[in-house]
Structure formats: structure tokens, C-alpha cells
């Protein structure tokens, strides 16, 4: 190879950079964030369910909450009718009633994904 030293050095740096996540993570445990559902209210539920399906909530909870906020602020009532026809009060209390710990529930995934929670700029966190 001609100018081999420089070329190999350059290649090594490039390969090192793009494979860094692999040798950084290989062999390490990959714990699931496991948002905790272990709260008294949830434990008492016969059929465990949220306001919408688990899949929907996982992907869309932020939009649902944003929608609630907008509806309430616009004075368009505060009752949410879910896709199964159940009625919920559009309030944090509805959430906290089951998910009583921000730390054990919200933060698990939000930390895992490094996504900020802008909710608490206005709303106060639950005490428990």
C-alpha cells in the first residue's frame, strides 16, 4: 500500500468511530426499562387496561395527553370517550390514580430514551 500508514490510520479511526456502539455495548446487559405496573390500583384490576390499548399508549401517550390538555384549555369539556366507549376524566388524576409513581413509571422509559418530560414545567409531580 502507498501512504499506507495514513490510509490505515484514517480507516481505523473511521471504523473505530462507527463500530464504537458495538464494542461499547457488547457483553453488557441490556435491561428492559420495565415501567412498573406494580401499584395497588393496577394490582386490583381484574383485566389490566389503560384508557386505550397498550400498543396505542406506548406509541401515542404523549399525543393523547396533549389532546386532553388542548380540549380542557379550550373549554370543550373534560370527558374523554375511549375507543371502547369508556369515559375518563381528562386529568392527571386519571393517570396518577393507577400510575402513582413518576419515578417507577414515566421516568423508566423516558430516561432510557433520553426524552424530556415537558409536563412538569407546569404540572406538579405526584407525591408518591
Amino acid at each position, binding site marked *: 500500500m502507498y*501512504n499506507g500508514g495514513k490510509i*490505515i490510520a484514517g480507516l481505523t479511526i473511521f*471504523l473505530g468511530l462507527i463500530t464504537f456502539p458495538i464494542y461499547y455495548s*457488547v457483553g453488557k446487559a*441490556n*435491561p428492559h426499562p420495565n415501567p412498573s405496573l406494580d401499584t395497588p390500583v393496577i394490582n386490583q384490576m381484574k383485566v389490566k387496561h389503560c384508557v386505550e390499548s397498550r400498543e396505542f399508549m*406506548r*406509541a*401515542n401517550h*404523549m399525543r393523547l395527553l396533549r389532546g386532553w390538555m388542548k380540549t380542557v384549555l379550550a373549554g370543550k369539556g373534560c370527558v374523554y370517550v375511549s375507543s371502547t366507549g369508556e369515559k375518563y376524566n381528562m386529568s392527571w388524576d386519571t393517570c396518577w390514580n393507577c400510575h402513582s409513581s413518576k419515578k417507577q413509571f414515566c421516568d423508566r422509559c423516558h430516561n432510557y430514551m433520553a426524552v424530556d418530560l415537558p409536563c412538569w414545567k407546569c404540572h406538579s409531580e405526584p407525591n408518591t
Partner: protein
Amino acid sequence: MKALLPFLAVVFLVLLVIAGVKAAGLYFVFGVLVPYAAAAVFLLGFVYRVVKWGKTPVPFHIPTTCGQQKSLPWIKPNGIENPSGTGGVVIRMLLEVFLFRSLFKNRKTKMKGEYLTYAWAPWLWLSGMAFHWSFLFIVIRHLRFFFQSVPVPVQAIEHLDSILNWGVPALYITDVIFLAAVTYLFLRRVTLSQVKAITLPADFFPLFLLFGIGASGVLMRYYTRVDVVGVKELVMGLVSLHPAVVSGIGTIFYIHLFLISTLFAYFPWSKLVHAGGVFLSPTRNLSNNSRVVRHVNPWSYPVKVHTYEEYEDDFREKMKMAGVPVERE
């Protein structure tokens, strides 16, 4: 039309994923095998290409000099555009790689009345910069899927990118720039006469692929949504070499992933290798010192020349007549 086949090719790739994932449920294939294969092809292919260039010698010292040479001590040389040492070359290369300095010089040649004019034409430079930099930011942002605990710089870039705080989830500025730049790069190939004239189908394919990647990403984030925790678990499985199928991730994610895999696998065998090649370009990465330091051609061989002796034999009498000294009377 030259754009049609590459467009259909990308559509075909999308349909392939829909058929494979949604209909046939080949999650392991599309979630694990394809990304691994693409990464392997990319890494090996890229190394292969660079090594192949590396094995080819640089027989002559041919920098393109774009500034004053270093000659007499009282003439100020342009140490960057016409570097006389390694430092200048490094700066020249950095400016080229990070700021596309040569492209910035672009001028549009036109005949205006009697005169040729050279109007400043920054659009190619601007769209090139916009595309590459937004792409880089997007790649860095995606690193949050690649580390169990997300590194601070990645978080910082993510914050910066969503600083407008529009909508939930917040709009990334780079998403807009990326799609706009790719769109512009496509439009110039179908509208500008000169660019149209040089465009090959192989120029459209990566553009459509990139657009598909951007569009599926945008759809996934702002419209259809997927379970990002599931996505991260899949990715972490891949990077920690403990791959596992994660259920409950929407098909749109697999489309995104498959198009990215295609891009990576396609990269080393296409014009996209300019990313590596630019570093090896002998007109840019050599300093203009060929009269100061001897450059050796490794394959140099002796050539047949017409020697002075032969020359004198041809012209001895004429030389003598003209009073030109000769070696042998």
C-alpha cells in the same frame, strides 16, 4: 425517463418489506439478518474500496494549486489554497471535507450581451452542505438508540435540533432541512438543463433511497408512531450482539430500517464512496513542494532516450560549421 426505474426500485424495496414483515412475518429476517448483512457489506466493502485505492500508487505529485506558491521570501504564499507543508494540507482538507470549499467557489457562466459573466451560484453548495450536515446531525441523534444510557453530546444535539419545540413530539429542524435538500438535489437533476444532461439513473437511486429513509422516519415520528422503546430494544440487541426479535413495532419501522440497510450495502459500490475518496484525492491532499522534496514514482522504469552522443553523430559537421563545440572532432 431516467428517474423512473430507480423510483420503481425503491417502491419495490418498500413493497418487499410490507410483504415480508406484514404478510409473511419475517421479523427476524428484516429486523436482524438484513441489518447485520448490510453492516457487514458496508464495512468490508468500504475497506475493500479504500485499500484498493491505497494499493494504487501516486506516481506524480499533482496538487491543484489555487493560490500563490511559496517562492521568494517577500512574496506572501497562500498556505491553504497552495499548501507548502503538511499543516496547510490538513487545513485545506478540513475545509474541503467540512465546508465544501471548492464547491463554494461555484460560478454560473452565462453570456450577457457581449460579455461572459460569472454569477455567484451558491445553491449547489448550500444544498450539499444542508444535506450532508443535516444527515450527520440525524445520524448523531439516532445514537440514542445505540447506547443503553444516552451520551450527553447526543442529548445536546437532540435538544438543539428540537429547539423550536413545535408539536408533540417536537419537530426536528434537521428533518425539514434533510428532506428539503434531498428534494432540491432531485429537482435540479430534472429541471436544470446542464445537470439533466449529465444525470444517470444511478444518480436518482440514492436520492430516492434517501428520500424514502427521510420520509419513513418522518412518518414514523410525526404521524403513524411506533413504540420507540421497542425499537431501542431491537437496536440494543443488535449492537450488543445479542439480537432478538421485538414484537409490537410497526411495519413503517421495518421499511425505514430496510431502506437504511440498502443504503449501507449500496454505499461502497456506488458513487457514494466519494465520502472516503475525497481524502485520497491527489490534487487536494498533496502539498505543493515538488521542487523542494523529490517525489518518487514506485513503478518508474528506464526509458529509451536519444542521447547527446547520438545527436552529435547526427549533426557534428553542422555544429562545427556553426561554431558549436562538439565532444568528438
